[in-house]
């Protein structure tokens, strides 16, 4: 037993993230590419990939920097999607208000689930989040406002600031890009703030962080809420883009998907989960057309990730570069 408990936690395999300024040139180049992309690819597809990337980055805040594996992040995604869909469709709220409600609802769920889940660590944390999100799934299955198996269909896209019609896919794309970039920036800020440093300290050695006087549970809970709220942002955007909030958003398979994205890209790296998200969405798109069983392929990638490259694509890349330097 003791030998295992001394083993490094999941995130410790990732190389320490580079602190300091992100290379501005690369960020600028990335934004230019993102601006050009919808002219080359189908905009809805790019939006789907961006949403997945945001979701995975939000999730990674918990796993990569908090060292806690949540198996229930679909609950936050789904909650926000329902809040967004219901408020804009039934109550006639504008886009911005719906988005805000979605984020708040997801954050609130983060408080409820987080308070319970952080009472246990490691493997139990994963099982508790999984169980609670499954509970939420059953609740959504039965409450009338979610329309059960049908989901909330025909969610209106509305207008940004009351002026720009989101029905136009280019306007939708640029609005979404702006919001997603804000989300990325927030995550980047959180990770590189004193808060993020404390979080990493807790991940690497919890008893030491406690002995230094940090209220560990409060930091964990705060990280969990932030992660939940940002996952909610992704979920709310998803409901607008696809004009649908459905039970699928809340399933445990969806929670598993976001873990895969993060694992594939690289746990505990800034860029990794985003890359993983884009890859998984692309793959799903390709597989759906080919008629191959998607789950089997996703499962095999999962197995390969865990067995062969636990650092993920970006993590391996960083490790390789470090090795070359030294």
């Amino acid at each position, binding site marked *: 037993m003791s030998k*295992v408990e001394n*083993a490094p936690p999941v995130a410790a395999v990732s190389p320490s993230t580079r602190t300091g300024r992100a290379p501005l040139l690369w960020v600028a180049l990335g934004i230019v590419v993102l601006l050009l992309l919808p002219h080359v690819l189908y905009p809805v597809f790019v939006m789907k990939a961006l949403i997945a990337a945001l979701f995975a980055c939000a999730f990674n805040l918990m796993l990569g920097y908090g060292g806690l*594996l949540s198996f229930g992040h679909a609950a936050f995604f789904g909650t926000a999607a329902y809040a967004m869909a219901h408020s804009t469709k039934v109550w006639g709220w504008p886009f911005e208000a719906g988005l805000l409600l979605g984020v708040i609802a997801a954050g609130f769920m983060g408080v409820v689930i987080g308070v319970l889940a952080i009472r*246990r660590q490691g493997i139990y944390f994963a099982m508790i989040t999984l169980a609670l999100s*499954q509970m939420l799934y059953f609740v959504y299955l039965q409450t009338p406002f979610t329309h059960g198996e049908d989901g909330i269909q025909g969610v209106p896209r509305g207008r940004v600031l009351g002026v720009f019609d989101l029905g136009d896919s280019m306007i939708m794309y640029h609005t979404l890009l702006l919001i997603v970039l804000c989300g990325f920036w927030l995550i980047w800020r959180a990770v590189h703030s004193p808060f993020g440093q404390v979080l990493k300290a807790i991940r690497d050695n919890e008893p030491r962080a406690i002995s230094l006087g940090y209220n560990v549970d409060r930091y964990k809970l705060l990280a969990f809420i932030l992660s939940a709220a940002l996952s909610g942002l992704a979920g709310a955007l998803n409901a607008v883009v696809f004009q649908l909030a459905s039970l699928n958003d809340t399933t445990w398979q969806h929670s598993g998907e976001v873990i895969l994205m993060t694992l594939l890209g690289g746990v505990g790296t800034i860029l990794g989960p985003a890359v993983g998200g884009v890859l998984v969405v692309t793959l799903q798109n390709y597989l759906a057309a080919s008629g191959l069983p998607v*789950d089997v392929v996703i499962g095999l990638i999962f197995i390969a990730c865990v067995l062969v490259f636990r650092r993920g694509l970006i993590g391996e890349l960083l490790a390789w570069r470090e090795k070359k330097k030294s």
Partner: protein
Amino acid sequence: MSYQALMAQLAIGVSNGAFYAMLSLGLAVIFGMLNVVNFAHGALFMLGAFVALFLKLKLGLGYFPALLIVPIVVGLVGVLIDLTMLKRLRGLDPLYSLLLTFGITLVLEGIFRYFYGSSGVPYSAPDELVGAVDLGFMIMPLYRFWVIVASAVVCFGTWYAIERTRLGAYLRAATENATLTQAFGINVPVLLTLTYGLGVGLAGFAGVLAAPIYQVNPLMGSNLIIVVFAVVVIGGMGSILGAIVSGFALGILEGLTKVFYPEASNIVVFVVMAIVLLVKPAGLFGRAT
């Protein structure tokens, strides 16, 4: 609420509890020895039901031979999984083995869903177990009664094997201190692989028992396993007896909820889990970690 209806739901509750108990027992044994949370437990339970179905359709072997053969087949699959994959993760954070077995679940379910869709295939109970049994205070479907008895025997057998036999003593010793146990000349790696096979074989056995009740269906395992996880959190994973007791208790509670407040029957186990976490975070039978 009539007495008969109450009793009928209670009987269903106890037999569902029997499945929770058998599955959480397997999880507890595997976790205790290997420090692995076996997400694939549900998928292997499903595999057990499908193997029973294949035995019947392809080889004409009935229910009772299946009860014997399936745990061995599923156990062998488990040994294979352990030797080829899980073994490489020994000593790493248990989150990795959770993710690995999650991947295995997706693959197994995906394969069966590809060939069988999401709908179930019926598997009928053997003629000997059709009908009802009069227990004096109630009349119960014979098959449900059989499930309860069979799982109680298996649970007790497993408990006995681990707590009261020499092999069980080796197992417990290896759990306590693997290095020292190995120094005494006991082949711990083999013991670990066998434990995984045994735990998984239990899931296969439960799968055969479940086949006539639920339809044989690719998703029958994953819906169950999440509830079983909650059961395990409630009972605490350290204790075998705790796994068995909380399995049966929660099955009964779920049955009662179906009578008095059916809307909540799906979520009652999770609610109990939340309450237990608030009151006694280590679980009812668990030691503080």
